[in-house]
């Protein structure tokens, strides 16, 4: 478990409504600082600037999907230890296995409860080495 609390979250999501709900959930319920990215191609830049504790990626996005973005992140040495959580509506066992094989920190399936989301993320955070 990291020796600091989970505070800074970078969230990559194309759907503006869900962006808003997640932002409210994390800021108001979880008292966290959130940076939201709508365009996945801008994500690398934002992460570099914002220096989050954790990155949340949507699975299905136009232009570039979550797994592709994740692979690009992994190619950068400075982002190697950065925990990544996927939010997905496709929760088949095969998909979950695929995510696990990519080395992601955890998954949250849609729909999630905004009341519980900060706790779910903190639970994943606490299990990190």
């Amino acid at each position, binding site marked *: 478990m990291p020796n600091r609390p989970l505070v800074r979250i970078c969230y990559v999501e194309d759907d503006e409504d869900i962006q808003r709900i997640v932002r409210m959930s994390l800021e108001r319920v979880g008292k966290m600082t959130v940076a939201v990215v709508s365009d996945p191609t801008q994500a690398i830049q934002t992460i570099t600037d914002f220096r989050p504790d954790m990155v949340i990626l949507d699975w299905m996005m136009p232009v570039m999907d979550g797994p592709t973005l994740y692979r690009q992140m992994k190619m950068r040495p400075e982002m190697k230890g950065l925990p990544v959580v996927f939010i997905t509506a496709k929760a088949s066992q095969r998909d979950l296995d695929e995510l696990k094989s990519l080395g992601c920190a955890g998954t949250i399936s849609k*729909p999630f409860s905004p009341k519980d989301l900060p706790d779910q993320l903190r639970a994943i955070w606490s299990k990190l080495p």
Partner: protein
Amino acid sequence: MNHSTTANGTSGAPSSTHEVSTKAVEAEIRDRADPRQVLADRVAQLYRQMPVAIGATFIAGAIATYELQGRWLQELVLIWWAIVVTYSTAASLLLYAYHRSADKVASAPQWLRWIGIAALGNGASWGLAGGVFFRSLSDEQQVFLAFLFAGMAAVGIPVYAASWPIFALYAAGILGPFFYVLITFGNRLFVEIALLVPLFYAVNVAIAYRLTRVFHGGYRLRHAYGRLAEDHRLLNQRLGQQLVEIEEARRQVEASGRKLALFAERAPIAVLELQPDGTISEVNHAAEMLFGYAAAELVGGPVKKLVRPEFHHAFDDSWHDLITRRESISGLKIRNPRRDGIDLICEWTITPLVNFQNEVIAVIAQGRDVTAQLEAERMKKEFTSTLSHELRTPLTSIIGSLQLINGGVMGNVDPEIGELTMVAERNSQRLLDLINDVLDIETIESGKLTLAPEVVQVDELVREAVLLNKAFGERFKVRFESHGDQPDRRVYADRKRLLQVMTNLLSNAAKFSPEGSAVDISTEDADQSVRIAVHDRGSGIPETFRTRIFGRFTQADSTATRQKGGSGLGLAICKRLIERMDGRIGFDGRPGGGTTFWFELPRHAA
């Protein structure tokens, strides 16, 4: 007979193959001829000759009596004549009795004894004549009598040839007394003649012995031949029968061949008959229709004509595998180009036909066009995936927003507005449950459900399910009560899916229980399985609904749907999940009212 002599003699080369085969033939003759039959034939031969013996004795006796009468031995001659007549009569009666006897084969040894006695009597009667009369006769009469004895002894050879011991007895009867008379006569010439008598006797017996062997061999051969002929006849009969059977089998094979050809010709699937080298030898009408070629264009050509050129190499490898392993393949999907260049995807069943030497003689390929089916499956999958994403994403926003409001995250709201947002959240949740149920049943029914089985402690699982559904029960003012605490009661199953089943059963029980009542959950061991039961105190299940309860989209009546909510898929999903985990599910009415829903899963041994 020549062979027989060689075989019996000591002069033949013992190692020659010819002799071996002669011996083999002899052995075969001996094996085939029934010795009782052979003896009976010899006895019959002896009796056939009997009239000659009787006639010769009677006539010669009469002549001798005539010649010898009028002398001082008048009475003795008449007595002798009486003996001859008695013999002739007795022998005739014996002959008559033999002809009348029923079973000449079984009683042959007995008849042989009787004719032996008769022959001895016959010989003895002549011997008596020699012994009594010879000394007192004139020289001429002595010559006459000696001539008569020699003649009678000679007659005995053909008469008794079928049994040399009988001839020996007969001749001994005649010549024994004669020899004695001659040797004791006191005349040198007679002594010399007497010494010749045993010699002639021995020669005659030797001739009779040879003749007996000839007769014996002849009869044996006759019987062996009879048996052989009989065997041959039976063999022919059997061969004939087998030929008939083979002909019948051939007709049946031909008939089934015609039937098979008819099936192949009329079948809606493409059937190709291929040679082991991949040359097409026959195609049916459906194949012509499917690939757009006429039969004549395909037959004689390689089957690779129906495979895209870029796959020819892979096809060669698979074909070689098929011919080597000689095992049929089914469910093989191949991209087959039609004559007009459009690709079809066909599902093939390929069966090599193998002969008794385990060589492939032909390959039958049966193909079905599954292009449209695969396309439909792909579209269905895409649709399901789209439905899953496109419906869940807006629902995430709706439920998320409502939960933020109803959870007080946005501050206090007007109670009336709060009531409405609660209604909105509850119904959004219901919509989400419905979508999840539809996706679940689709996944299960398309066979794509993957289970993650693990060892599950049953009582612990029940406690967890009760805890998870406590809030739902409280909505209907129903409490869940679980009993049982057996840590070794375990099953091997998918934990998440079991919780899903439990949640379904518990929420159903809560929905249909009267307010304030309790729902009992029990676990027990049943034979090789573990049984989990949920008992409610509701009004029970209507009779008309019982058979449909595990079907899709079923609920007791539409009023219930409106009142209680639910997709009507819950129990259908439960049944399919439990059956996938090798269990069974069911329900019973309870005597005091209410229903028990139960499921059983194979017990996991520690």
